[in-house]
């Protein structure tokens, strides 16, 4: 109580206002309390606990055997990384996937948004709904649909390619094509990014385009000098969300191979498949926590790099953000 009184004196001068402000703060904290409790119980404590667990051999079947193992888990990960075993392999798959799917997804989402933003296009609302719709399909279901659609003999893509005399890969049976197949599946879910780009495009003031026109600039100049800088904040946001989505990639790979080996031939052995296997198949929750922390570190580093470089290419029109 005394501490609260001290604060009041520094925040608000008159005593009458002070009690009002205190009431407001108390009410506010009361309203925030669900989130504050959740933050502690479901976020802060688990993060710290998983960090602590990552230095142990904790096995959920044998909790009594809990021992502090120092950096053993991290050393094992490092060994697996340099010898290209589970950790090295799964990080490779995840990075390769990110390098394909994030730029491609963002490029296509932006292209679609520009197309749906065309003044000449009729039925905008309908097209927006149609291109967004696959986002709503549960990932397990969309993976099943694409497994069938991309099947090398009975799938429609193969049949179309054969009909026009082209060879068709057997996507999810072929180690070289399984990851590109998942990239295609990912493109089905670009509706979110597309909507966000679309909103960004709609907020570009048309006078800016007029100005480029007056200066004699063509469509490319309009895109390069007006659209791109004006939508750079949403581009930044979409890249960030794209990276986080890859870091959490699991359901599609697990649906392809419920054994968790990343069939075919480990080509879809994502980082989280390895984590799931260690944590829930082998019950090595200490080691799985170490894996989770490495993924957290990778995401934090990627986000920091993105934020650092953003000063150079993200343009905030208001200048107030």
């Amino acid at each position, binding site marked *: 109580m005394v501490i609260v009184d001290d604060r009041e004196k520094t925040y608000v001068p008159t005593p009458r206002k002070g009690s009002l*402000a205190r009431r*407001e703060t108390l*009410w*506010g*904290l009361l*309203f*925030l309390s*669900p*989130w504050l409790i959740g*933050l502690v119980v*479901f976020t802060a*404590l*688990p*993060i710290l*606990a998983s960090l602590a*667990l990552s230095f142990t051999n*904790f096995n*959920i079947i044998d909790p009594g055997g809990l021992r502090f193992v120092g950096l053993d888990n991290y050393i094992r990960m490092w060994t697996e990384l340099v010898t290209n075993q589970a950790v090295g392999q799964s990080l490779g798959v995840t990075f390769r996937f990110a390098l394909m799917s994030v730029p491609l997804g963002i490029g296509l989402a932006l292209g*679609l948004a520009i197309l*749906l933003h*065309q003044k*000449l*296009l*009729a*039925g905008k609302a309908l*097209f927006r*709904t149609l*291109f967004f719709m696959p986002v*709503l*399909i*549960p*990932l*397990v*279901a969309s993976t*099943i*649909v694409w*497994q*069938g*659609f991309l099947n090398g003999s*009975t799938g*429609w893509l193969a049949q179309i390619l054969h009909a026009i005399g082209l060879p068709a890969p057997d996507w999810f049976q072929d180690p070289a094509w399984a990851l590109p197949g998942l990239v295609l599946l990912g493109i*089905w879910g670009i509706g*979110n990014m597309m*909507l*966000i780009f679309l*909103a*960004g495009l709609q907020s570009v003031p048309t006078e800016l385009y007029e100005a480029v026109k007056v200066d004699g600039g063509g469509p490319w100049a309009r895109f390069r000098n007006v659209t791109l800088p004006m939508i750079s904040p949403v581009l930044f946001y979409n890249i960030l*969300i794209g990276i*986080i989505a890859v870091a959490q990639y699991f359901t599609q790979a*697990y649906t392809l191979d*419920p054994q968790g080996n990343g069939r075919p031939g480990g080509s879809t052995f994502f980082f*989280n498949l390895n984590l799931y296997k260690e*944590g*829930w198949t082998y019950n090595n*929750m200490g080691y799985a926590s170490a*894996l*989770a922390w490495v*993924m957290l570190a990778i*995401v934090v580093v990627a986000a920091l790099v993105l934020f650092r470089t953003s000063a150079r290419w993200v343009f905030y029109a208001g200048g107030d*953000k």
Partner: protein
Amino acid sequence: MTGEAVPLPLAASRQGRSKRARGIWSGFSRLGVTLFTASLAMIFLLPLGYMVLTSIKDNSQITALNAPLWPASPQTFTAADGQVFPLYQVPLETGAVQNLALKTPGRIVSVFIDPATGQEIQWKGNWRGLSPVWSGIEPKLDNFTTVLNTLNFPLLLKNTLIVAILGTIGAVVSAVVVAYGFARFRIPGRNGLFLLMIMTIMLPFQVLLIPQYIGFRAIGWTGTWLPLIVPHFFANAYNVFLLRQYFLTLPRELDQAAQVDGASPLQILWSVIVPQSWPAIVAVALFHFFFSWNDFFAPLVYLSGKPELATMTVGLQAFSATYAASGTGYLTQAAALMAIVVPVAIFFVAQRAFMRGVVISGVEK
């Protein structure tokens, strides 16, 4: 100034013509752009077409070469003695193609029956290269009955709805309350807290999952729905962000008027803020409902070994693991179709509110 104000007659007429030409031109480009977009949308949604059509086919058609796109059955011929033979499209030496019933298949010579005359015909060539005769449109609707029974669809639907609806109530109530706190109350360090909340969006779920799992196991909640419902009563950052942005656009005068009338903050929230915020509240409810319907990792680990509690995605994945491998892909497609009907239908009814919500929570950061 004068040059612009008094154009030459010739220039005026040319301008008029080019305006008309431009009108026609823009009509054409309008058609072109729209047709282009429509064909893109068709390609984009082609996998859905595959799912729908495959779900009403059967195995004989899926594995056959040159089968029609529509669901059909291979035709048969019933001979006078009651024996049934499959019909094939057989190219004859004369160059004509006739529909004949296969009596004795052979690798070099096969015996066919002409259904019109009942006469036997010797045919040279490998019968396996022949295409069967297909019927007209014959959807195999029993696929859905099969799935309904083997997947125990009603149970999955019930479980998923319970988890999704209870979670949605928690997500909406908690997000409304917390967003109200962030939007209307001066709390020391509020901006820092808000930033902290936004940062939690970036956390990969894995880093929280293992300790949460251990904790829920310790209090005996694994193997129940509680871990899939209770955490959502503690406000999700996305939802709070969306609602707070919306609340900030509401005029404060109404709050203040209610306050002067002696309403408590809770009464103001309930009778002033909430009635004005239905679009955003509906968006949040839809977000959570779809999230819950799609959620896979949490039900997978928390409900493992409890098939009677399984949710739709977990049941569907287990079904696919069993049936896709055994070559009955059409049943898996039928199951997938049944699993997406509810979210897709809800989306089409409420897509406006939903997509506006996506935009608000994505753009205004």
